């Protein structure tokens, strides 16, 4: 397939060997998540269940055929493996990060990297085109994520910047190595450790930082000057680029003010700190959106979204609004490569326990964390120090909020009240509560983590919130539903898929919405590489008649690069295939419908705030609030049954059936499940 470089790097850290996997072997899985799951299955499935810390755990880092071409916002790289984060079962999971690593890897001639085994002492992988070296990391171990990168830049390109560098492979580049690294937190094998690349790109979820640390792998550096990505139809690709930007986003400086969307969104959309006048928007590779920013102060470079949100509530409470402390707090989480969603929910939890008189100096959970300075960057720094030193509550917190609560004997009660806001698989709640924006919660619990997939979120949540807060409704709920009914191939023609009413979220229609979401994200985003903040582009006021570029855009770019002629529906089928493979892996890890349950508070505590969503009530579409809602246990069990039916999985177990798997050309998967007594 054009777009592929043709080889995947396979590194065995135990034996210190470097081999190549022919990408053609996995071409049917296309890229990213598809190839990652397929390789994981081949290398590990028959040995499951194993611990994530087991050297047999394989981590895959995969690009897509579109990475490093002119397809917009395809600079993402997918990371997979058995993760450390979820509870009680450590699911095979995924993380994803942006920046320029994927592009550089393609330029080095690789489609991805597979990491097996465990090194006997700290090492880092140095990739210079097809020269791959497993190098000693004793002088990198103990450095934070930023220090490590700067040190590796010195090692690989002599610290030079601004000039052409001749590589050891006789090639030339002006670019610095792209490095993916852990901090001291990852070195400790902490479950809350992330992987960081450049200043602010991170694979936050899954605890992959801790997996790297457990494997004694400090960093992967890649510099690529030899490779060039073959594009099947360069003219069509450039045309598609122009078409997408002109018709779905327009010129940022001259376009009228309209309700934007994923693709049409505003640059620096993700920057939620304190802006300085002297700045620029900052983009990942080949992205026309540029969510982040860089400043004269050099603080909060490339940070965005939860890197601020995890702490902005505390800063505002202390200072009456955001201050530079917030920007500094963002930098801390990047340098120390920590999962920001965990930090968010941990901090709120600690503060609540402190307010309850349960946690603090001399209290039942004894800590000298200085709550009087909560809201300053220094408070976060102190917390991180405790985590790294393993002192005070720091040791427990390395395990994440849920396991810390368990250690403190409070897990069950705090999940019952929602004081511990971890609704699905011991993963922190994202801000789109299962009781309200159900497609997010359902997708997460039917999967293995907080999905972090905004495809519907932009217009089912933010639009109505903005509309209601200003009394201005440029796009109606009915129109959103209608647009979705046109675009959600292969489930077109059903506007009620977008009904978030108390009845709607348990309906057959909603089952299709959730299934569409799983299949779409598995293929078009996590395998083809489109960024979650640009795709899917469903409702977009900059597009013709408020319509975004999904499903046409994805197909245009994909076919122009690869030379294939697939349809959107065919891509969705590949997504469904990948989703089935993932489920099979989870089944081998111990999945059964009986464990697919939200935390108690989702069923027992009414959602306390206003959360407007599109709803069809009494024959009328409107944006209405889901305040006070809880998920009904019995109705949700019924929803699961309907979902399993649609997916062709056993309704008693949630396991895929032989007929479903064989129809997806996954007979070998069915055979292994059968051998393990786990076929649906």
């Amino acid at each position, binding site marked *: 397939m054009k777009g592929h470089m043709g080889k995947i790097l396979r590194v065995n850290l135990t034996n210190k060997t470097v081999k190549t996997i022919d990408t053609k072997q996995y071409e049917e899985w296309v890229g990213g998540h598809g190839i990652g799951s397929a390789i994981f299955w081949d290398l590990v499935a028959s040995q499951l269940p194993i611990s994530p810390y087991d050297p047999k755990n394989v981590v895959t880092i995969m690009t897509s055929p579109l990475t*490093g*071409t*002119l397809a917009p916002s395809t600079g993402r790289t997918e990371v997979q493996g058995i993760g450390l984060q979820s509870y009680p079962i450590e699911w095979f999971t995924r993380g994803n990060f942006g920046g320029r690593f994927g*592009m*550089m890897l393609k*330029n080095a001639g690789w489609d991805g990297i597979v990491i097996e085994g465990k090194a006997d002492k700290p090492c880092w992988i140095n990739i210079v085109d097809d020269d791959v070296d497993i190098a000693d990391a004793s002088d990198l171990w103990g450095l934070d994520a930023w220090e490590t990168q*700067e040190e590796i830049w010195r090692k690989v390109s002599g610290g*030079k*910047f*601004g*000039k*052409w560098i001749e590589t050891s492979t006789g*090639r*030339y*580049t*002006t670019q*610095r190595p792209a490095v993916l690294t852990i901090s001291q937190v990852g070195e400790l094998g902490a479950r809350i450790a992330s992987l960081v690349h*450049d*200043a*602010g790109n991170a694979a936050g979820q899954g605890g992959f930082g801790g997996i790297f640390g457990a494997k004694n792998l400090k960093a992967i550096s890649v510099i690529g*000057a*030899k490779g*060039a*990505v*073959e*594009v099947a139809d*360069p*003219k069509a*690709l*450039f*045309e598609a*680029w*122009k078409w997408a*930007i002109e018709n779905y*986003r327009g010129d*940022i*400086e*001259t376009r009228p003010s309209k309700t934007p969307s994923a693709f049409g969104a505003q*640059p*620096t959309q993700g920057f939620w700190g304190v*802006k300085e*006048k*002297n*700045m*620029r*928007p*900052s*983009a*990942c*590779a*080949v*992205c*026309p959106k*540029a969510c982040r920013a*860089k*400043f*004269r*102060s050099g603080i909060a*470079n*490339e940070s965005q979204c939860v890197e601020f949100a995890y702490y902005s509530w505390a800063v505002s409470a202390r200072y009456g609004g955001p201050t530079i402390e917030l920007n500094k707090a963002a930098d801390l989480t990047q340098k120390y490569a920590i999962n920001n969603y965990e930090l968010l929910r941990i901090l709120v939890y600690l503060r609540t326990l402190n307010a309850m008189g349960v946690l603090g100096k001399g209290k039942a959970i004894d800590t000298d964390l200085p709550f009087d300075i909560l809201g300053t960057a220094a408070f976060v720094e102190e917390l991180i120090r405790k985590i790294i030193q393993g002192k005070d509550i720091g040791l427990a917190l390395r395990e994440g909020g849920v396991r810390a609560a368990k250690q403190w004997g409070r897990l069950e009660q705090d999940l019952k009240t929602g004081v511990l806001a971890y609704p699905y698989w011991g993963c922190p709640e994202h801000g789109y509560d299962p009781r309200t924006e159900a497609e997010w919660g359902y997708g997460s619990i039917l999967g293995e983590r907080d999905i972090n997939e905004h495809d519907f979120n932009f217009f089912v949540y933010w639009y109505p919130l903005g509309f209601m807060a200003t009394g201005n409704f440029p796009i109606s709920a009915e129109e959103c539903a209608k647009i979705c009914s046109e675009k959600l191939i292969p489930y077109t023609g059903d506007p009620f898929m977008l009904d978030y009413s108390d009845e709607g979220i348990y309906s057959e229609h909603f089952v299709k919405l959730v299934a569409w979401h799983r299949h779409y994200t598995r293929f078009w985003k996590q395998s083809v590489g489109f960024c979650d903040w640009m795709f899917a582009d469903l409702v977009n006021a900059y597009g013709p008649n408020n319509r975004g570029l999904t499903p046409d855009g994805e197909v245009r770019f994909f076919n122009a690069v690869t030379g294939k002629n697939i349809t959107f529906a065919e891509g969705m089928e590949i997504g469904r295939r990948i989703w089935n493979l993932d489920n099979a892996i989870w089944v081998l890890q111990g999945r059964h419908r009986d464990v697919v349950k939200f935390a108690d508070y989702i069923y027992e505590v009414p959602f306390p705030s206003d959360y407007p969503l599109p709803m069809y009530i009494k024959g009328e579409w409107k944006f209405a609030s889901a305040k006070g809602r809880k998920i009904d246990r019995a109705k949700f069990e019924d929803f699961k049954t309907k979902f399993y039916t649609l997916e062709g999985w056993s309704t008693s177990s949630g396991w895929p059936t032989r007929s479903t798997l064989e129809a997806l050309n996954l007979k070998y998967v069915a055979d292994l499940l059968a051998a393990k007594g786990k076929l649906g």
Partner: protein
Amino acid sequence: MSEGKRLDRRKFLYGLGAGLIVGGGAVAGATMLVPPQTITKTLSTTVTSQTTITSPVTSTFTKTTTTTETVTPTFATSKGYIVVDPKKCVGCLSCMMACSLVHEGKTSLSLSRIQVLNNPFERFPDDIIQEQCKQCVNPPCVAACPTGALHIDPTTGVRVVDKEKCIFCFKCMKACRNVPSMMIPNVEKKYMIKCDLCMDTPYWGEKGGVDGKHACEEACPFKAIKFVKEVPEQLDMSGYYVNLRSKRWEELGLGPAED
């Protein structure tokens, strides 16, 4: 950290032919259908003083001095130039993808004739280096080329490489005063490549060249690249780094409208 080369770049001094190697028949024999243009540099210095030059009466006035410096180049000048706004550039590298795509049919950072370097830890505006071929009025690359592979296109004045004649000696790359050099080695094909203002783009559906479109400009999603026909300021190259930001850029909270 940036090497601090930006100051050096901007202090190029183009001697009036002195030091340029005008050797070999290749250059002397070049047809010059576009006559060399005289570049006039206008320096405006504003001085507030209490002395007058025309009258003995002391008064406060503002004097503007205009000096004219003439650079008479040896070569024909290009009919077009790419200018950039490094304060607007977001570091997406789309221009590099587009450039390599239309010229080579494949995408590669090392085959792009425009180079953007992103330093994630550096402070704005030093965090991004955005460099393009300047189509220099006095091109050291052309002067350095021993075979005449690097020459002036007779119709357009664009400085271009004849791949057949290039012997891959790297003299042009060393001679180019841009940092990084805008003469780029295509190691696989064993010839140098450079910005040709999209004159030769077999993989593009658009017409390039001095009267056509330019891939980097077309691709840039933020309009941080522009093609112009007027010769930019040569003495300190400041004319190649321009402000392409509107007031709206600042209103939208994306950065300063003024430099």
